[in-house]
């Protein structure tokens, strides 16, 4: 300790003497383990001054401008000399990670150039090499290179990762149910009522430090993931004073500067990603009885009340053509660290770091030939081709606003570090669509009509997260580490005032509204809010076992989640027959003269209070774990642990009959799940050579039913018109007892690490699913739009993964700036069908077809391929990359008898990016990016035995160009 103060005093004296000094900063880590070295000595040879590393292995030294040689030493490690460290007046030279190797037999000194210290992917690779878990990731430096704007674009470059719907991250092709996302290692709520994982497109990469995907479970992680646990780490303590500003413009010939782009007039703050109240629910709409001609007759309201109530709804139903602007984004980051220790004081008052970052993004999407189809099999089994039931084609315009704000404070003193991060993401998506609908009356359950429809939607999402985190090192040799985190997150998703209007076109050409055809004009409000509160404590004891470093970890966490969900529906009806319209302009519907009592249009409420389309759920998870990491044999590292989770889920909700006051099903804060589970895990890492590992792992994990799955909810999804029945309803072929899925995971991996972040690895995995849950189509519903989550037959997944990161210098030294990386995942999945599904399929077995009793798991991609070729010339400041990503044909909607299965087609995404750093100091960067170079369509098809594939949905995203400029001040 005395030495520390001595050094500190020396540093201070030096800094006192000169005013125009610069700074050298860096982090010292153990080369082998990747752990930070606390208390390493840093000596500036030329001045004899220096410092020691802090709790994070970081150091700062103030020196006069000049070129210096640094000596880094620590007991038991080779001393490292870094030459050519240039310091400029009032600037900080950040050396990045300085790796110290353990002393060998001979005491030798290692000398490196300062320029060689800075690494990009190598840092992440070190984590990967030594991590007890099998993990993969992407760092902020690679994100910068690829030019990815949001976390979702960046994440798809990670081995085995695929993206669903442009928003959701799946790992190893396993569906949403088996993936999990955390933010700074704490649970965050999803932003979609139907999903487990969060929509990743709301995280701007400007705020992300790195994204790491753990593919197998160890005891300190939450146990409710199976495919992968994706953690987003936001930016922390800046090493350097940073002020960076960046801006970009994007252009897609089909979407931007297009005068046919569809939108509608919303609120004054739409450009900030939230509604200003324009789309609020009209007053009185929540009443049991709303003003209608009926409630006028019953004496509750007057004619004027009815007219006023209709008038309180925004009369716009029509999509408007507006010219779209270019996509653009702006971001600014500012941060620094301040040494609070007074210059004339010996007292360590610590270091305060802060960061503030803001980003704004505005994108336009326009599909001019979107197509959505519903197809059926015919009853005669020799008829192989499918028959259309309904087709919908037209245009969709979307304007997406994304704002990210992050503020962070970090304080370090002695062996403690505290961090407070506050984040807010705001996202608003305005969508307008126009469609021609052709319904086939010959198809089962269809009435047969021609209609035109217009949809106006607004979806706003927000996420506010606070993280308070402390890290303390204590005990002899600082061998104990305590990490605690408190993190509340509030997220909201609102779809305020979704509007839908359709006109039927009669056989005689008349234009009218038919409730049984295109449906009545309708309005809908949907809202979800979720609170997650996480507290966790992790303790690590570093010790020696058989002469090698070992670790004992234990800790606990308590997570509380609460979700509120509600849908409110309103229907515009005619008191008397449907009016005839001169043309199919939906804005005619609410013209004053058509409104009751002058006309006959009124609004009817589709809601009962208490509302069956509403629920409240809570879940608490109390967890404890213990895990030990030690080299049980020379070269064999083992991590063996067990985690216990007590999970309690409660639900408040009801079905329609209960809501109407009858003897239905109702839950009032009742426990729907209460289980204690133990999750063992064992990871073995056998070091075949210094640069080669063989890993084997076993773990048990869990996938629990979601809030609405363990309920008596009957939720009509307004967007797909599907009815979701909670898993607790019993049917003749389902006992209403929905249980968790327990999964056994087995992994094997061989990996070879080479210089400069090169890597070659081969993995195999096997997963066994006990009682997997799938959304099952209810066969007794003829229109086929009712689903229920059920435990289906046991499932299995086998997979193989390859990853190569190779510098092409081995072909020719001239190619040393070129690197190739690829990762490929092949998966075979199998699930035992339930009798219900098997019989339904058997009933529609085509002539010549043989129905098997197993099939692939829904959402499981058979393969995922990522490949990239990168060029990197640091000296000249050029970086370029060509990236390819594809996911194999995936079963997305499980068919049943009449309805064929839907498979999403591989989308061949080929993107190119290039950036150039300008100026002597390379502080300005220009980047150019071209995405979807192959101009592929996003499509999913109905597939049936020997039948021509028919489109389920199809849109054309077009080719996108973007140009960005960023500058570091």
């Amino acid at each position, binding site marked *: 300790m005395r030495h520390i103060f001595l050094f500190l005093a020396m540093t201070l004296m030096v800094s006192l003497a000169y005013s125009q000094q610069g700074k050298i900063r860096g982090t010292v880590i153990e080369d082998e383990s990747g752990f930070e070295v606390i208390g390493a000595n840093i000596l500036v040879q030329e001045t004899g001054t220096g410092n020691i590393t802090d709790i994070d292995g970081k150091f700062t030294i103030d020196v006069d401008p000049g070129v210096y040689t640094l000596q880094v030493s620590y007991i038991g490690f080779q001393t490292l000399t870094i030459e050519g460290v240039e310091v400029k007046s009032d600037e900080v030279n950040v050396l990045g990670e300085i790796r110290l190797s353990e002393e060998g037999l001979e005491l030798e000194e290692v000398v490196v150039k300062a320029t060689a210290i800075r690494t990009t992917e190598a840092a992440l690779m070190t984590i990967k090499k030594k991590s007890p878990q099998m993990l993969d990731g992407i760092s902020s430096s690679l994100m910068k290179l690829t030019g990815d704007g949001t976390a979702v674009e960046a994440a798809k470059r990670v081995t085995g990762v695929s993206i669903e719907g442009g928003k959701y991250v799946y790992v190893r092709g396993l569906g949403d149910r088996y993936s999990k996302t955390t933010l700074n290692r704490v649970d965050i709520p999803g932003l979609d009522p139907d999903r487990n994982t969060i929509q990743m497109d709301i995280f701007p990469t400007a705020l992300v430090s790195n994204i790491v995907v753990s593919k197998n479970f160890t005891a300190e992680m939450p146990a409710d993931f199976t495919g992968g646990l994706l953690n987003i780490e936001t930016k922390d303590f800046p090493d350097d004073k940073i002020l960076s500003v960046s801006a970009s413009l994007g252009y897609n010939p089909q979407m931007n500067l297009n005068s046919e782009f569809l939108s509608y007039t919303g609120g004054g703050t739409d450009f900030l990603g939230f509604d200003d109240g324009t789309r609020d629910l009209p007053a009185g709409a929540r009443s049991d009885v709303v003003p209608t001609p009926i*409630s006028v007759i019953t004496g509750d309201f007057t004619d004027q009340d009815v007219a006023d109530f209709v008038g309180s709804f925004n009369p716009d139903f029509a999509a408007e053509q507006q010219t779209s602007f270019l996509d653009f984004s702006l971001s600014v980051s500012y941060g620094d660290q301040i040494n609070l220790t007074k210059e004339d004081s010996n007292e360590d008052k610590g270091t305060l770091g802060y960061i503030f970052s803001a980003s704004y993004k505005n994108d336009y999407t326009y599909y001019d030939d979107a197509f959505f189809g519903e197809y059926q099999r015919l009853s005669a*089994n020799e008829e192989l081709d499918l028959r259309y039931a309904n087709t919908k084609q037209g245009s969709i315009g979307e304007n997406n606003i994304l704002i990210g704000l992050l503020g962070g404070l970090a304080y370090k003193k002695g062996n403690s570090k505290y961090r407070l991060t506050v984040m807010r993401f705001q996202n608003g998506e305005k969508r307008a669509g126009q469609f021609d609908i052709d319904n086939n009356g010959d198809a089962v359950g269809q009435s047969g009509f021609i209609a035109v429809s217009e949809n106006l939607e607004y979806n706003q999402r927000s996420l506010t997260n606070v993280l308070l985190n402390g890290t303390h090192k204590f005990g002899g040799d600082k061998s104990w580490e305590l990490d605690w985190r408190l993190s509340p997150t509030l997220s909201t998703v609102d779809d305020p005032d979704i509007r839908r209007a359709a006109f039927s076109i009669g056989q005689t050409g008349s234009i009218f509204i038919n409730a*049984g055809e295109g449906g009545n004009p309708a309005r809908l409000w949907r809202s979800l809010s979720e609170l997650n509160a996480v507290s966790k404590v992790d303790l690590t004891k570093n010790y020696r076992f058989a002469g090698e470093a070992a670790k004992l970890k234990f800790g606990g966490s308590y997570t509380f989640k609460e979700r509120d969900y509600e849908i409110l529906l309103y229907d515009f009806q*005619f008191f008397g*027959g449907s009016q005839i319209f001169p043309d199919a302009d939906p804005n005619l519907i609410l013209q004053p003269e058509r409104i009751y009592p002058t006309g006959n249009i009124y609004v009817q409420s589709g809601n009962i209070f208490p509302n069956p389309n509403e629920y409240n759920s809570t879940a608490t998870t109390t967890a404890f774990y213990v895990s030990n990491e030690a080299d049980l044999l020379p070269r064999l590292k083992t991590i063996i642990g067990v985690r216990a989770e007590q999970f309690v889920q409660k639900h408040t909700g009801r079905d329609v*009959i209960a*809501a109407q006051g009858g003897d239905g099903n109702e839950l009032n804060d009742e426990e729907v799940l209460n289980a204690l589970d133990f999750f063992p895990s064992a990871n073995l890492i056998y070091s075949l050579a210094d640069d080669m590992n063989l890993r084997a792992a076993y773990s048990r994990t869990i996938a629990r039913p979601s809030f609405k799955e363990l309920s008596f909810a009957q939720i009509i999804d307004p967007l797909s018109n599907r009815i979701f*029945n909670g898993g607790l309803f019993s049917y003749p072929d389902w006992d209403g007892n929905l249980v968790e899925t327990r999964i056994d995971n087995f992994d094997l991996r061989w990996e070879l690490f080479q210089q400069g972040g090169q890597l070659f690895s081969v993995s195999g995995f096997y997963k066994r699913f006990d009682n997997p849950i799938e959304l099952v189509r209810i066969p007794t519903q003829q229109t086929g739009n009712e689903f229920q989550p059920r435990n289906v037959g046991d499932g299995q997944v086998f997979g193989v993964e390859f990853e190569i990161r190779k510098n092409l210098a081995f072909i020719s030294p001239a190619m040393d700036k070129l690197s190739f990386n690829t990762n490929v995942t092949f998966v075979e999945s199998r699930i035992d069908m339930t009798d219900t599904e098997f019989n339904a399929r058997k*009933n529609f077995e085509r002539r010549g077809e043989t129905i098997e009793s197993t099939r692939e798991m829904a959402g499981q991609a058979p393969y995922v391929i990522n490949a990239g070729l990168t060029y990197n010339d640091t000296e000249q400041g050029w970086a370029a990359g060509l990236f390819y990503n594809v996911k194999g044909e995936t079963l997305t909607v499980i068919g049943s008898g009449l309805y064929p299965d839907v498979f999403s087609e591989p989308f061949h995404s080929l993107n190119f990016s290039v950036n150039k750093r300008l100026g002597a100091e390379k502080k300005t960067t220009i980047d150019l990016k071209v995405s979807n170079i192959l101009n592929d369509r996003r499509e999913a098809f109905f597939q049936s035995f020997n039948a021509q594939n028919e489109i389920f949905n199809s849109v054309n995203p077009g080719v996108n160009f973007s140009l960005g400029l960023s500058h570091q001040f």
Partner: protein
Amino acid sequence: MNLRFLLLLLGFGFMFTACDDDEPAPSFNAPTIDAPAGISTLVAGAASQAVNFTVTIDSELTGSYAVTGTGVTITTASGDLAAGSNTVTVNFDAGSTPGAASITLTATDSEGQSASGTAVFTVEENPSSIRVVGNITADATWVTGKTYILGGRISVEDGATLTIEAGTVVKGEAGTGVNATALVIARGAKLNAEGTASLPIIFTSIADEITPDQVASGDFASPNLGADVTGLWGGLIVLGRARISASTDAGEQLSEVQIEGIPTSDTNGLYGGSDDADNSGTISYISIRHGGSNIGEGNEINGLTLGGIGSGTSISNVEVVGNQDDGIEWFGGTVSVTNAVVWNAGDDAIDTDQAWAGTLDNFVVVTANGSLFELDGPEGDYTARHTIKNGSVRAIFGGRTTGGSLLDTDNGTSVDFSNIFFAGPLSFTDEDDNTVYLTITDDEFAATTFENVIFNIDAAELGNLMEQGGAVPAGVSAGTTSQADISVLGWTWAAQAGGLEGL
């Protein structure tokens, strides 16, 4: 028991010794009475009510009881009591005046000892309308002179019978989506709704000011709602266990499915089976109005839905007026319907699916927003034919023009038409002064037959009614002779409003 026997012996002993000694007579236990606790409620005028008293008489004695009441009329005023415990059921009718009421039972044993107990009641005013909430799981009767309000989707569950007496009015509360109201007769349940020509049963909306008194007066029209007001409540859904053609395969039939409009989690919505003779009750002289709530995009409730109804069911004299969806829709089944009127259907007037195997005999259809006849074939391997005969149809009337086809079939439609008259006009002049003909989809007649099907149009123009321009099928001709016997339909609102004139 042993103790009692001992006491008895002891008692005899005393008797022998006491006779001569002229000691007092032995004491017997006085009667005790348990009257119902608390205050029960009665509806004013409720007949055939009952209340139980428990009376205990000494084991060696007998007795009798007498009942008096205030505010009620006792029908069992007295009776005998046996030794030991007696349960006395007192039958009575509630009085017609609201207020407090009571029944007092006095028991007297053979020794002249007596006791009394009182049951207390509150007589509530007899409401003219009764709101029904929750499913009907035991037999129930809805009585003449009352209005019953459907507070939601009310199902009569398997095993229960709902009897609706003549002249009753049933009104559905307003709502759309999940909030729609309807009366569902589940499989295994029965609806006995037998009105008469002078006292029909009316199913309508809460917005309809019609009263049982008005019906009793012979005026069956909705006083405040036009015949084209639709979608104010759901409808009447009757489900049974007869065969339907809903799915296909080489082996087993999908013999039951869920009726449209009811979520599958409510199993009262299942229909279909194998009992073609199934009996869902008797329905006659009912008029269903202003229904067809929208319950989802493109999904409403028909006026009268008949899903898998067996031939044991009797349905006659049915009227559907102003329903937002179809008038009458059959989903398979074997039931026949006679004497029907469908007026101003919001979608199709007569709709058949899933191989209905019955007969529609003697009917009138007056305009529809959709098609007048929307007749589909089987959806599974099971096939059956239905018969539609003796009907008169009006496509354009009262300012309304049918929006769909005169007749829409598909290739599997197995129907025999006979003696059907399509009244004129069958064409209209559009805003561009073009003559537009209503048409028949004539390309899918593979399993459809016509006999004496008459269109009121010039014979030369018959071809204009063929949508695809095909040949006029055999059995179709031009003519002016009405085919329905409207004399039996005089009780309907349509007839009272003049809608059947000239048919």
